[in-house]
């Protein structure tokens, strides 16, 4: 499950056009959040896999979602595996 799904992601700002859902992009951002919390590479990859799978299941009945929805759902699942990483994932845009 590494390919893109035919689901349109509406950007939260509304300034950019919609884009297709990319599992790799989500995986990369979740793994980065785990690594920034000093998780090991394998653990970060595992966590990102689990969260991506959960998000894809949630996406199955939804043809169009916003990037904010993806972030919220991913963050909710990430909290179960790594609360610190979930905090960073959700809050990094509210740091400055």
């Amino acid at each position, binding site marked *: 499950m590494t390919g893109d799904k035919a689901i349109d992601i509406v950007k939260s700002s509304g300034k950019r056009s919609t884009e297709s859902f990319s599992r790799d992009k989500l995986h990369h951002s979740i793994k980065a959040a785990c690594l*920034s*919390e000093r998780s090991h590479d394998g653990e970060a990859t595992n966590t990102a896999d689990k969260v991506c799978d959960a998000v894809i299941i949630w996406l199955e009945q939804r043809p169009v979602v916003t990037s904010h929805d993806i972030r919220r759902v991913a963050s909710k699942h990430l909290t179960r595996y790594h609360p610190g990483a979930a905090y*960073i994932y959700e809050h990094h845009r*509210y*740091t*400055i």
Partner: protein
Amino acid sequence: MTDIIALSIVCLAALIHASFQLSISTLTLMSGHSLGHGRSHMRLLSLLGGFTLGATTMTTLLLCTLGLLLSYLVTSQQVPSVLWAASCGMLFGVGLAVWLFYYRKGKGTMLWLPRQTAEFLAERSKKTKNTGEAFALGLASVFGELLFIAAPLLVSVLIILPLAPSVQLSGILLYVGISMSSLLIVAMLVSGGHKISEIQRWREANKTFLQFTAGSALFVLGFYLYVNEVLTIPLAAGGLAS
């Protein structure tokens, strides 16, 4: 004013400067991105060092440049009262601004800055890969907060200017050292292995306290200087003070 009192005022102004958060936010964000990209601990240390050095350099440059510019106005041992009055007004104004809107409402530690400046710093912190870029980011982060740090900087310069050259140097070193202390502490915590989320959570939990303390300290400093430098001088000149 004795040297001890003068240096104490410089210390208080530097503490106020240290309580401002833009450099710390940028450092936290840069560290998070660096760790998130799986960069080595040595690279993280060099980025933290570069950033801290950049912020220190910009603070020193601002202090010395302001000192040089004001030295043309302050020719005698006495700073003109009008300059003190303007500085006190600035302290009160910035104090009020800090109280009312230093942090944006809502979650996180978003600061009341032009969004373009904040987005620029956030974007640059993501793209910072080497020490030179971290140094430049450190310079920019101090410059970005000029609106708030201008008041403590100005007061410190006015206090330092009439002092003897050796005490002036102590004043500059004290100001730069203390104003960079909060940044150094966060850099040491990150390099020591503390989690970014712990640091950020602490900052978010205590932001209202920091905001209130910084605003209040600006008011206290403004009031003290107004009484001592604006009100006392005319009273002394009129023979009303002992």
